């Protein structure tokens, strides 16, 4: 167990690598109750969210989820979030635990200009059931009435059922579900899911799975000082309609098309070893950036990393990462590294 932003959380339940493989091959179960959940309602909710997020929640139909980022006025990333349109002007926002105070304060700061009721939901727990077997395992523990609806959920869709929210989302690059429910019921749900064969998985596996999936971790790959274009998240910016004025838009417009910044790349270590956060990335012996998230990929059985490098440098040439004073060859690739259990990276 380790302290994690005010929570006591397991790094692993035995073997991090075994938990990782369980998610890629069968079904893993994560307690992610540390995530920050806020419910929003009121006539101004959609306008409020459209002002705060670089993605556009107006594109959501009822029961749809959307990944996006909150930007500050300089375009830097305040946090990455998932917005779910529960119905009409009722929305739920899930953000990170490390940023809880900052993000709650950020939403409070902008709220007075909009007619929106704002309800943090610390009463809810959250579990993620992930892997190719996740839907089948979950189906066996759901109330009979909910099974057909959950079974019919499409990716990035959600439903409400008796105080629960079930969404077909995750942070692993596998199929799966996330369930938010009153905390009093989570222990029983956990026991039922593990009884059906779901393998409990800790923070360690959560990190290697999301990294293989090419997904960003706030605080490592994303921060207040870098905009989404710097971080490989340009696809989350809804530029249209051009008249929508969201926080950070002017800065992002200025950055768009300018080639003086940085960009995100994926790296594969050619030899044996592990890539780590902070290691220096070089091209032809010249430092061009640094690793923002590095680890070992249990699926590919090699070191992998996300790195931030000068935007202007080419993908070709002799790329290296410095590990303990020596330069080790790496291959520049386009994440994700792994999707649905299979190698998925492509050359840049």
């Amino acid at each position: 167990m380790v302290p994690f932003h005010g929570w006591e959380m397991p790094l692993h339940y035995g073997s991090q690598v075994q938990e990782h493989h369980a998610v890629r091959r069968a079904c893993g179960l994560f307690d992610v109750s540390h995530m920050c959940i806020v419910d929003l309602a009121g006539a101004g909710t959609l306008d409020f969210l459209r002002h705060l997020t670089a993605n556009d929640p107006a594109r959501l139909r009822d029961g749809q989820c959307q990944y996006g980022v909150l930007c500050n006025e300089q375009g830097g990333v305040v946090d990455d979030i998932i917005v779910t349109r529960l119905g009409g002007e009722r929305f739920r926002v899930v953000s990170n635990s490390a940023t809880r105070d900052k993000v709650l304060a950020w939403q409070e700061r902008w709220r007075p200009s909009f007619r929106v009721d704002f309800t943090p939901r610390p009463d809810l727990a959250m579990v993620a059931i992930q892997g190719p077997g996740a839907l089948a395992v979950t189906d066996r523990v759901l109330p009979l009435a909910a099974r057909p609806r959950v079974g019919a959920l499409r990716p990035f869709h959600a439903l409400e059922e008796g105080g629960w929210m079930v969404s077909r989302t995750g942070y692993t690059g596998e199929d799966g579900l996330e369930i938010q429910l009153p905390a009093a019921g989570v222990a029983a749900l956990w026991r039922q899911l593990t009884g059906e064969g779901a393998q409990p998985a800790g923070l360690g596996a959560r990190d290697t799975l999301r990294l293989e999936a090419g997904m960003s971790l706030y605080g490592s790959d994303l921060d207040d000082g870098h905009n989404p274009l710097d971080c490989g998240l340009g696809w989350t910016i809804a530029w249209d309609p051009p008249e929508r004025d969201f926080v950070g838009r002017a800065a992002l417009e200025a950055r768009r098309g300018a080639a003086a910044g940085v960009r995100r790349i994926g790296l594969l270590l050619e030899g044996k070893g592990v890539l780590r956060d902070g290691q220096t990335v070089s091209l032809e012996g010249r430092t061009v950036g640094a690793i923002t998230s590095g680890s070992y990929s249990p699926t590919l059985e090699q070191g992998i990393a996300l790195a931030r490098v000068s935007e202007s440098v080419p993908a070709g040439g002799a790329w290296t990462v410095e590990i303990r004073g020596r330069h080790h060859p790496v291959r520049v690739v386009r994440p994700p590294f792994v999707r649905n259990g299979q190698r998925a990276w492509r050359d840049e």
Partner: protein
Amino acid sequence: MTTPAMTTPDNLKYTREHEWCRPEGAEVVVGVTQYAASQLGDVVFVELPAVGAPVTAGQPFGVVESVKSVSDLFAPVSGTVSAINSTLPDAPEQVNQDPYGEGWMIRIRPVPGDQMTGLLSAADYAALIAG
């Protein structure tokens, strides 16, 4: 969650940095303890010195990396590396599965007169990790 009891074989000597060593003829076999392996988690990479390289008691001779962390390996005695476990690069999980056997790391030919002072007995090491 309970932590399983850690094995500390009586026939080995130990460092405070969680290496074990076992004299065999004119050489000393070196690895990391079961406690160290369990603390590291899944070992995925081991960097060992070349055969013939000198090592100094108390100084790093290599590196072991698990998914979550990097740790130096410390030499229990001074001498020359006479062999390395060449199976570890392809099967680093042996460090977790069999830390006192297949997971051994290097053999050292100690410098003449190294009395292996400063090493712990099994009982003393067991007390150290029991905290």
